[in-house]
């Protein structure tokens, strides 16, 4: 075992997969000589050369399309968005080409799109967005969003080995803020499987990404007042691990869904709807969503703190449910 950061975990996954499989390569803006805006691919250019760590022109649609084309003829490209926000420029290629290839004409498109996403970094509206909502109604894509260094590595490896287009949401706020013990040997975290971050019995807090840590903070406080929270870390957000969600709800009968995305049309809406459909009889109270308000991400610290869901809000929601 060794201790590494979330960012290092991503770097290791990329490095190991590139060493293992010559069809894996990286492309994007400033990923090569510079090593990436967040330095995730630092040293890769020297190690793998300019054709496997490819600095592209400033053209997200172009390089995402190119990733798709390369994938169709046997490569496993990992495309990096400099910030997840710029994925909007590649939206068409992802939604209409990558997502539909296999269904339409049977061709696998094994690409990974790395999307450094999320706020809490005073980045303002264009460097803080949660982009999973753009793709949440698009059949054919898979979306993962690790909360821990362990999962960051294991999910990225799984994504690279997967034969479908995977959007890999890596939370910028976690890059250097969290560390995990991870095994020396190769491992993957399977796509499509949630994990129980904390076992509990009174309420299920269903979340993913940086909010897993917010939920954990809240759970600690709540534990102090005798409430046992179960935290479900979704890990894969498309498609959802319905079974894990249902199992937890059947146990706790109370649900708080937490995400950093804005509320309307977020992943939480789908989770809530699934629970209503499938576990209605088990529910002992309303399904509460805690999410960012429906605005772009504001820049100033005061406003951003209101924007990003805080442990206090989770605590309040759980307490409300406990009164049910």
């Amino acid at each position, binding site marked *: 075992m060794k201790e590494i950061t979330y960012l290092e975990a991503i770097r290791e996954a990329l490095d190991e997969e590139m060493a293992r499989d010559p069809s894996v*390569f990286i492309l994007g803006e400033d990923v090569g000589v510079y090593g990436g805006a967040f330095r995730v691919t630092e040293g890769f250019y020297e190690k793998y050369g300019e*054709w*496997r760590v*490819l600095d*592209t*022109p400033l*053209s997200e*649609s*172009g*390089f*995402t*399309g*190119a*990733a*798709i*084309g*390369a*994938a*169709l*003829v*046997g*490569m496993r*490209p990992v495309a990096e968005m400099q910030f997840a926000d710029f994925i909007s420029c590649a939206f*068409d*290629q992802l939604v*209409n*080409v990558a997502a*539909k*290839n*296999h*269904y*339409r*004409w*049977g*061709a*696998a*498109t*094994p690409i990974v799109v790395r999307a450094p996403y999320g706020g809490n970094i005073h980045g303002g509206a264009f460097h803080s967005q949660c982009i999973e909502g753009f793709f949440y109604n698009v*059949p*054919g894509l*898979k979306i993962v969003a690790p909360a821990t260094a362990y999962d960051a590595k294991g999910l990225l490896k799984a994504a690279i080995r*997967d*034969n*479908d287009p995977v959007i890999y949401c890596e939370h910028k706020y976690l890059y250097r803020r969290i560390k995990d013990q991870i095994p020396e040997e190769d491992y993957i975290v399977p*796509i*499509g499987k949630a994990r129980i971050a904390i076992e509990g019995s009174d309420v299920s807090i269903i979340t993913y990404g940086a909010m897993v840590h917010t939920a954990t903070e809240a759970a600690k406080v709540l534990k102090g007042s005798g409430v046992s929270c179960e935290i479900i870390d979704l890990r894969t957000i498309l*498609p959802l691990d*319905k*079974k894990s969600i249902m199992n937890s709800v059947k146990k706790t009968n109370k649900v708080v869904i937490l995400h950093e995305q804005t509320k309307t049309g977020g992943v939480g809406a789908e989770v809530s709807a699934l629970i209503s459909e499938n576990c209605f009889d088990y529910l002992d109270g309303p399904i509460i969503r805690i999410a960012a308000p429906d605005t772009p991400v504001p820049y100033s610290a005061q406003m951003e703190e209101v924007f990003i869901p805080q442990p206090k809000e989770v605590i309040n929601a759980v307490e409300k449910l406990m009164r049910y």
Partner: protein
Amino acid sequence: MDIKREDLLQLYYYLKLTRRFEDRISSLYHQGKILGGAWTSNGTEAVSVGYGYALERNDIAAPYFRDMGVFLIRGITAKRIMAQYFGKKTGVTGGKEGNVHIGDINFGVIGFPSHLADNYPVGTGAALAFKMRGEKRVAVACTGDGGTSRGDFHEAMNFAAVRKLPIVFICNNNQYAYSTPLRLQMTIKNVAERALAYDMPSKTVDGNNVVEIYKAAKEAYEVARNGGGPTFIECKTMRMHGHSEHDSAKYVPRELLEEWKKKDPILNMEKYLLENTIARKEDMEGIELRVKKEIEEAEAFAEESPYPEPDDGLKGLYATPIEEV
């Protein structure tokens, strides 16, 4: 460049096959037998036949919707394509997709996504893979004159130029994008001038002369194959049907159509074959018969083929499905 007689006859055969096949589609559409819409390449068949036939077996095509010649040449049979139009299970996509939305990676054909020019970056990616792996393969991508106005056109051209990728970009300049004439689409005289922005070699060829297109494509493929980078080829031609079979194309001046009718690519080729004593009338009639038979068989095959099971549409979303436990 010398072209073998055999190849010339094949070019003629594919021109005919494309024309007759699409003529048949057009009739079937008007008989209400085709689900959805029908688009043909009438008058511009030389483009897809020319650049398609110039490919090697291992190359990759990223076509657009007026590229019936490419589909046929790559080995996606008339039978499968006809069944595709009928929405049958035996169609190229098993009924999932229809008409020109054809792709089969086993035949080196990347599926056409409706969104025009999307296949320019995708084709570029295939070329990138070839270059990375040191393979002597090329990619070709095609779009219409209208398609060259899209951002993806620009991003792909630029990327391919910067990385000197083994790709050839074809533009079927049929002078209209649906109803939009060239003068509302671009300010340049030749679409080929788009390539100046990338310092990319380009060529404007007679889009109704299959031999010229074949030669230009073949040459460009060889340049690309040998590390010389991309080429852009504009084929100037004229769309002789409406945008689709339900469009009467009132907006096209009749004189323009009259003028281009005389330049029909099939008549052109017949003249060429006769004048150069490559084929006699009988040879061509033989080909016509062969084509006729092939299409009849295709239609019979499509007619007789079963429809997909209603639930087939629920399958095949993912290449790596996620087991629900």
